[in-house]
């Protein structure tokens, strides 16, 4: 069982998929800090004065974690950090949903309030997607040893 589930090739695929997702999400946001700020504001979770800082910090963090996973460095740490980040996104989206707002999650650029049409299915999809990413991060935390990585554990 351990051999199938902890198979290093699975780990490699997970590592590269997460790296791609994080690098893409970070790249589209970092060049539009205003949009990222507005996307964060739309969640109405952080005080407005935090949003501009987070608008830079979040994409930078995503790119940093994406690079670590791509290179295969500090995989255990990067996997755990990614899982926590994705879990945070899940909580954020769920909280927006519960409070009755209708927003674009701004996960890959964009963001802000949008029409409530199709809200339930959209939020569900985003939560499931980020939940899967979180599980992938936890996988790397449990089995960080993957092929084609710079580090050997």
């Amino acid at each position, binding site marked *: 069982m351990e051999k199938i589930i902890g198979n290093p090739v699975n780990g490699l695929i997970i590592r590269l998929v997460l790296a791609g997702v994080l690098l893409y999400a970070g790249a589209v946001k*970092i*060049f*539009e*800090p*205003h*949009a990222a700020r*507005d996307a964060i*504001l*739309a*969640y*109405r979770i952080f*005080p*407005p*004065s935090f*949003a*501009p800082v987070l608008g*830079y910090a979040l*994409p*930078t*963090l995503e*790119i*940093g974690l994406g*690079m*670590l996973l791509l*290179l295969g*460095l*500090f995989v255990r740490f990067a996997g755990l950090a990614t899982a926590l980040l994705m879990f945070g996104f899940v909580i954020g989206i769920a909280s927006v949903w519960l*409070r*009755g*707002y*209708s*927003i674009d999650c701004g996960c890959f650029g*964009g*963001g*802000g*309030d*949008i*029409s*409530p049409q199709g809200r339930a299915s959209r939020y569900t999809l985003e939560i499931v997607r980020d939940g899967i990413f979180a599980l992938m991060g936890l996988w790397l935390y449990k089995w960080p040893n993957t092929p084609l990585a*710079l*580090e*050997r554990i």
Partner: protein
Amino acid sequence: MSQENKSAKAAKEAAAQARAEAAKLEQGRQRKIRLIGGAVVVLVMAGLIAIPLVSGKNKGPVTNGNAALPAGVTSKTYGVKVGPAWTAANADAIPMLQIWEDFQCPACGQFEKSSGSALKALIDAGKVRVEYRPTIFLDSNLSAQNTAAGNPNSSMLATIAFGCAVDAGKAEEFHAGVFAAQPTPEGAGYSSDALTAIAQSSGITGDAFKTWNDCFSSNKYESWVNNSFDLFSKEGVSSTPTGLLNGTELKGDVMFDPTKLTAAIQAATKS
């Protein structure tokens, strides 16, 4: 104790020592890789933070105290007040609804479509003091699409045109006309010709149209729009449309549901 045993023991020890040395070497190599790789990642992250700060893309608009303002607009909010309730004897008892909108925002178009007519009825009946507060944050978000469509700074242009229509006394008509003509897909933007046509269909004709056209083509209210946009950022408005009923933000499901919106406004009326 034979000679053979002794040499076997020595060989064993030597092999163990070699293994330990190899492990040590590998450990050192791993440490070096982590150190260099970690430093590279940190440097790239620092560079990413520095680029937008240096390029000045994060700079917002600056309030211009000498900005020309459309009729009835004050430097307190830079908003456009519509309807008879503002000048009623008991104006203070009538609920005030401030609406932050960007003419290019699809959700604002959706809001106008779903709640616009219910709101208009309340405005006309003097039951609510509505203030439209323009913002143009989508000009930067949609700059690529706007430019590709040949309509750069579309929100700015539409809002200047709106200010000129306020002077002509056609604020509500023009406001509704712009949202009714909102282009799809988002980002196609408004052309000068389209805005001119909306002004005409709003009932701005004859001399009034000449005045409107001069006002519009000279970008008379550009500073006013920037000042309002500046307040949008300063007040930390999260997105558009944002409705503030007597200063309290309305939830999305209330904003977009004409029945709930009407009920909320009625509930806020002081008797």
